[in-house]
Structures are given as C-alpha cells and as structure tokens.
C-alpha cells in the first residue's frame, strides 16, 4: 500500500452536491465519480495521501423521511466504490443533513466495517443521535468554518485508516462519546481529588475526571390563578408504593413509573404503603410514608378548601441511579396524562 493512495468516498447533501436547494431536497441518493463541492477542499487537504474516488449525494428530506431506506441505498452505492475510508459532511448546524451524516457514518462503521468520520455543529441533533457510535468532529454553526473543518476531517480520516489508536476526545478533537476509559495513573484517586480541590480553592485550572451531564432548560409554566378550584397531583421519585410493590418497581435504575389510586386514601400508613427506594435509609419512610409523599397534610388542605382537589392517582418511580433519559420519559408520560386529565399543578417530591 506504500505508494497507493487511500480510496475515499465522500457523502454530501443535495445543496453541497450542487444539485439545488430545498426544491431538490427530495432526491434519492446517487453518485458522481471524483470530488464535488466541499470534496475539492477535502481533496486538497488529503494532498497525495488519499484520493476521493466518488461522491454520494442525497437530498436531505429524502434521507430524513426515509432514514432506513436511504441508509441502505447509500451503503450500496458506497460499497461499489470499494473505499478505504468514508467521510460525511461537514453538516454544520443543519439538522437533517447532520442526521443523514450520522446515519451514513453509522452504516459505514457497522455494516461496511470501514473507518469513517463526520463533522457538524455540536448542537446539531445528529450529535445527540449518533455521537456514541461514531467519531464526530465539531464545526461552526454555519459553513464559514468549512476550510478548518475539512482540514481536521482529512487529518482524522488519515489517522483512523492508519490503524493508530484513537486517544481521548480532548486530544483528538472529536466530540465526547460518553464512554469512560480505564487508564493507569501514578497517583491514587484520593490524591488526585485533593489536588483538584486545592487547585479549585486557589483558583487554578483543573480538569475533572467525571464531567457532569448538561441538562436543557424548560421555561416555567404559568402560575395557577385559583388554588381553590385547582386539581393538584402528587408525584414522587421516592419509591412510595402500595405494600408488596405490586408492579415490582426496581430499587435502583427503575425501568418504570406507575400510578396508584388514592381517591379513597387520606393518609399513607406504614401498614399499607412502603418505600422500595435503594440508596437512602427507608426506615423513616416505612414508618410513615407521608414523610416522603405528604398526602395526609394535603388532604387537610383539601378539606379546608385551600386547594380544589387532589388528583385521584399519584405517580411514583424510584430515582436512585435512574438514567436521566428514563426520568425524562417518565416525566413526559406523566405530564401528558395529567394534562389530558385536566390536572392544573404537580407537587413532586424527591429523596
């Protein structure tokens, strides 16, 4: 292979493929031999180490509306070129294009077993959807960063195909995939933690070994105008369930969220209810589950007319080490059902 150039196939959308804009976004994938559009810059970045043997072009709408089918069609076309490497994009901030690049890259990696790299803006939905499985390089939001993106993609593609080990995202410049890697360190965790804390206290830079996940925000819902007529629902991640845990909610990383009828319950007693939450001492909650989900005092407020009505069901899951994605799913389900049931507000307790 010493004198032979690596064979590269480049995936781009209809716009960069010089077919047209939105009007042409429904075209099915097809190919051109050699580089097209941004492929010319990519070709220059590869210098004499690789050559772009073909370009696959597909309309963004066609791809986004038929992801499975479009992916298959692209794989067939890419396979015909017998490439050594595949490069997709850069897609910048374009959501559909980013999803397409991600899907193509995933297909190339999993189905063709070839090295592949793509690039897009870090908030492109393609990042969330595909980052775990493929290498995505960050780009600017608009095509203004084309030159730089193409240079980095070419360098990364060459490294991938060289078989050299790909290091951490910070060193190699790809977007974090969310994996933890074990490495051997000279210092114990305790020592590293104290050093980090000292650095933090003295205002010096330090790098965490466990970055916290970033959460998006939701705008506050408007206030309830009249408490006296509202329907209020109780929700808890504290694991309060009818005794015996009829639906077998797990004590950690719960796989479900359940609801139970409390229309005839005025007080959660330790005889009829219990906590199945792992990770905190449930003795107190088992003595009196109102300590986690305050039904008794809320019934009083209902009887006194301070609030209109307590919703007939309460919702429960266990928050202990439950994945954020699960919690979002449960919250979404609860919100939808409560909305449909005409509930005006929610009190959610967490342990």
């Amino acid at each position, binding site marked *: 292979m010493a004198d032979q150039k690596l064979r590269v196939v480049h995936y781009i959308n209809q716009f960069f493929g010089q077919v047209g804009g939105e009007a042409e976004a429904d075209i099915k994938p097809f190919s051109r031999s050699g580089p097209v559009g941004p492929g010319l810059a990519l070709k220059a970045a590869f210098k004499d180490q690789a050559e772009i043997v073909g370009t696959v072009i597909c309309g963004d709408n066609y791809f986004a509306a038929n992801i499975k089918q479009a992916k298959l069609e692209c794989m067939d076309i890419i396979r015909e070129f017998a490439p050594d490497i595949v490069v997709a994009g850069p897609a910048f901030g374009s959501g559909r294009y980013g999803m397409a690049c991600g899907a193509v890259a995933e297909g190339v990696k999993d189905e063709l077993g070839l090295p592949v790299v793509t690039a897009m803006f870090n908030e492109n939905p393609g990042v969330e959807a595909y980052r775990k499985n493929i290498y995505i390089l960050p780009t600017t939001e608009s095509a203004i960063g084309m030159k730089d993106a193409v240079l980095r993609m070419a360098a990364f593609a060459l490294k991938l195909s060289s078989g050299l080990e790909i290091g951490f995202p910070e060193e190699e410049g790809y977007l974090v995939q969310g994996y933890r890697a074990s490495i051997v360190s000279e210092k114990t965790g305790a020592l590293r933690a104290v050093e980090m804390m000292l650095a933090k206290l003295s205002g010096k830079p330090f790098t965490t070994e466990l970055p916290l996940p970033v959460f998006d925000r*939701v705008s506050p*819902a408007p206030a309830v105008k009249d*408490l006296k007529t509202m329907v209020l629902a109780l929700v808890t991640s504290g694991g309060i369930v009818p005794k015996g845990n009829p639906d077998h909610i797990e004590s950690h990383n719960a796989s479900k969220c359940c609801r139970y009828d409390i229309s005839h319950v005025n007080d959660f007693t330790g005889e009829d209810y219990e906590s199945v939450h792992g990770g905190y001492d449930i003795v107190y909650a088992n003595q009196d589950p109102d300590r986690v989900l305050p039904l008794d*005092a809320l019934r009083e407020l209902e009887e006194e007319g301070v609030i209109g009505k307590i919703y007939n069901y309460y919702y429960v899951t266990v928050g202990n080490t439950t994945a954020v994605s699960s919690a979002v799913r449960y919250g979404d389900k*609860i919100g939808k059902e409560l*909305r449909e049931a005409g509930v005006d507000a929610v009190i*959610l307790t967490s342990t």
Partner: protein
Amino acid sequence: MVKAIEKHGIPAVHLCSIIPISQTVGANRIVPCVAIPYPTGDPKQDLAHEKEIRRRLLVRALKAISMDVTEQTVF
C-alpha cells in the same frame, strides 16, 4: 422528571433536599425540604408537630404554584 412534566405546561414544584441537584436538573420552582430520607417529615418530632412541618412545606409549595416565575426560584 419535574422538567419533563412542566414541558406539558403544568407547573411542577419540586420538593427536595438537595437543592443543587434540582437546580442542575432544571426545576423552576423548588422548595427545600427537611432531609433526604424524610423530605416532608421529621422523626425527631412528635407526630402532630411533624404533620405541622409537612403542612408548612405544602403551603410553601402552593405559594410557589400560585406565583409566576421567570427563572429557577427557590421558595
């Protein structure tokens, strides 16, 4: 979970003991509670007094529900 519920337009007040987690997760109305194993109780008190604590927390939660907020607010 709080945030996902609120996405449906229902104000969801979060009663919890670890405020920074609630803030990181993105709850908009937060009421600090007693302790992790008993957010709305206190086994050191007698039952009547404990219920009173619970009631006070609920009244605070109701206040949070009845007030418009524009950013994360701890009540």
